[in-house]
């Protein structure tokens, strides 16, 4: 339960009063945006009991968030239902479709099989983090240009996976693209357009904007 965390009195709450903290989080929102690394609570081997909540600080799309989570909550659940970031999608909840793909420290991972508590102190980037204001990022732009989507539900994960690929391999070969996209299912079957979009995104990222 969101308000049931009386055993946590000994933990610092980083300047936010306990009441405020719980109220806001209980309502499904974020406590406060904080500066990076502002609260470095000492990490001891402290056991969080089942069903109790623990405080975590997540760095998502360049902003810090402090919130209470149950240890079992996945990063996907927290991003969507607590932070309201609906880019990452649930598809299988077991690492078999890729719709929930996010970057963690720049590397593509499935947020559905990552516990939120395990993502603490890491840089998390969701689809939303690839935008620049209301403008699309280069990978998103490439997906639009190459019509690399149909229903669009897997697209968020596909875009993030391609982003991860290009950060590591700025000029991927066709085989590297295929492999880079092989952790994301598309039931509409747009794979060849996704490959084309990845190629186009590489161009856009390297400044070859023109077609």
């Amino acid at each position, binding site marked *: 339960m969101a308000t049931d965390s009386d055993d946590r009195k000994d933990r610092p709450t980083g300047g936010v009063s306990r009441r405020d903290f719980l109220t806001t989080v209980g309502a499904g929102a974020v406590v406060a945006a904080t500066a990076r690394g502002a609260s470095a609570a000492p990490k001891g081997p402290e056991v969080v009991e089942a069903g109790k909540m623990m405080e975590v600080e997540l760095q998502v799309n360049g902003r810090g968030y402090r919130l209470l989570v149950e240890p079992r909550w996945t990063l996907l659940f927290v991003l969507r239902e607590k932070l309201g970031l609906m880019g990452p999608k649930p598809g299988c909840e077991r690492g078999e479709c890729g719709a929930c793909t996010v970057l963690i420290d720049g590397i593509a991972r499935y947020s559905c099989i990552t516990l939120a508590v395990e993502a603490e102190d890491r840089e998390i980037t969701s689809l939303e983090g690839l935008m620049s204001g209301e403008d699309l990022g280069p990978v998103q732009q490439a997906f639009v240009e190459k019509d690399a989507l149909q229903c*669009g539900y897997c697209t968020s994960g596909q875009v993030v996976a391609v982003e991860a690929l290009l950060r590591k391999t700025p000029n991927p070969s066709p085989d590297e693209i295929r492999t880079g996209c092989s952790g994301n299912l598309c039931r509409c*079957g747009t794979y060849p357009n996704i490959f084309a979009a990845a190629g186009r995104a590489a161009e856009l990222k390297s400044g070859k904007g023109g077609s």
Partner: protein
Amino acid sequence: MKFGEDKMYYLEGMDLPETPTPGVSPAPWKKTHAVGEPTLRVDAYQRVSGTAVYTSDVSSRDMLFGAILRCPHPNALVKSVDVSAAKKLPGVRAVITGDTPGVNLDWPYEWGSDKSKIFDPHCRFEGDEVAAVAADTPYLAADALRAIKVQYEVLPFVVDETKALDPKSPAVYDKNKRIAKKENYVRGDVAKGFAEADVVLEEEYNVSCQIHTPLELHGSVAKWDGDQLTIWDSTQGVFFVQEKVAQVLGMPLSKVRVIGHYMGGGFGSKLEPGKYTVIAAMLAKITGRPVKLLLTREETFLATGNRPPNHMKLKAGVKKDGTLTALDFSCLGTGGAFQSGGVQLVDWLIRDLYTCSNVRCESTDVYVNAGQTRPFRAPGHPQGAWALEQMMDALARAINMDPVELRLKNIPTFSQARNGNPPYTTTGLKECLEEGAKAFGWKEKRSKKAKSTDNGHIRTGIGMAAASWVVGGGGPPSTIVLKLFSDGSANLNMGASDIGTGTKTVMAMVVAEELGLELDKIQIENADTGTTQFATRSGGSKTIPTESPAVRAAAVEIKRQLLDMAAQDLKTDAAKLVIKDGMVFSSEDSAKKKKLTEISGFKNRRVLLGIGYRGPNPSGKTVIPFTAQFCEVKVNTKTGEMEIARFVAAHDSGRVMNRLTFENQVIGGVTMGIGLGATEGRILDRNQTGKLCNRNWHDYKLPTALDVPLNIESTPVDRPDSQANTTGAKGLGEPVTIPTAPALANAVYDAIGIRVTDTPMNPLQLCRLLAEKKRS
């Protein structure tokens, strides 16, 4: 922009299509400006930025999460459900079962007369609903499900359709009701046909059960405001969800609003509403809070439909000159525990694709204790094509004829299987075969192949297959409301869902074509029973041919109003006016002209409303799309691995409305066909528990990025069908997926000389067949 500012959004230098007089439908477009161009999706931004709100994304602060407890047995009676522990868990706000007052309503299945309740005390398949909960988080909801104790009386079951008619097998209903449906079709005399044949071949073919599994889970969000219910549903047709919910809950349509602006794939499995929608509504009513109920992936494997498994036998006769003399087909299939189309349309291509005077088809749909079927992208057709198109390949080889030639020799110009043999408005099968073969280099590859001595352990083969799709011409009803604003921008209001095929984009292109608007000045409002007009479900490859003529009619209606209003200003006859460059001109006196935004009636009213209806299809004619697909495969004869080296798909779907989304549909349909042919198949624990073994995406294998070719080449046969409707478009989504699997099988035969009669052609099967061949 302030009203009255001298700004408007019309494209310059563009002649608008002629505006017909009232009651006359518009003539086919001569030259198009917008339609047919490769055009980016109008909602691409929303879909790549994450701002599109799918049902899964609907969220509110007081929202609860629902979950459903399902029967773990294929056949069982629910003896008791103990929810006391579940109810006591913190954060659990409601638990409902068949015993909850007011909850256990009748659930009418879409097809047939088999009855069920929301929580039926007799669970006839693994996955039948038993209870449901709503809780503060989905985790707590899952805890609550785990805390519910159910006592079942487990009954004997049958899940193997090939044993369902065996008198010794348990029956889903009773021993006298093992068959859900039997269908027979006869024309001519097959015995006579076989007697005339030079070659007669017979083969058995089996297609595994394929499961839709769209990426977005099936599910709904339900919210009440007093007696007004709002539902967000991941559906292919909001109006059908509205009707079903109103029917089951006994509510007027006016009180049920269903919204489905974005949905994450359906492929037929979201044509019908599910019990989950009504359950979400009940939970929301009981708790007084909105409830989001998304099924788990495992539930979608069990209980949201499938393409039925089919066991087919086909005997075919052909003369040396390629004349088909007889086709004799039988098919066994199952729609699961409720009548739902276990053999539906499986025989259609045998009846109707090729000219043949003597045809007999016999289909038997049996009950088994498994989840029911739902229409799946071209229901029945890929299964029938798996048999027919492999048989055509074998016949061609037997008479030493190019398989493309054999098909070209047997192209009908009318539907043989329909009453009265109506002619096709257009029949592009010949063009598909010829243009596809040319794009693929079929002849060259065939002669090269004949000469080559492929002696490594990786063997190459080429194959092709063709198809038509039983419908795909669309038709009434459709009602479109188009609003033209004073600055020339527009709002298109349509009931249909865009399930990812690019419907919205094509409709905006039609508006742009007819009114001379810039595409991005058209706002679209769709798939909401509260704000848009009734539309049929987006399925059957009929959305574009259904909706686009209605959109055109609405645009024409607006032009008529503009001309009438301009005629008053210019004191002339509306029939003498034309619209060009954002101006209305008199065709007789070029001095008589007026800027569209200056027309006083329009300026005063500030909005014009055009209502368009879909007119009837041509009487006495049949409108269907055609396709031919060509491929090259490499088979590793040591391991049975198959790689698709090349794939070319030629399609006649009338006018190509948007080249970009057209090609995307082709790519997607072929990929789904690759899944059917090479990777997918439901596996039930036939001998022991009857439970589903592969209920997740690890065990049930969708094709991945590494299982498809880098390119899937689309060769559109772009022939507007002027008889079909006012935009000349026919359907595309479904025909694509029909011939893919048999085209691959024919290529595999060409590579290794083995006729693979069962799907999926994975290394498990190919390795076994290769070894058997080696041993024999």
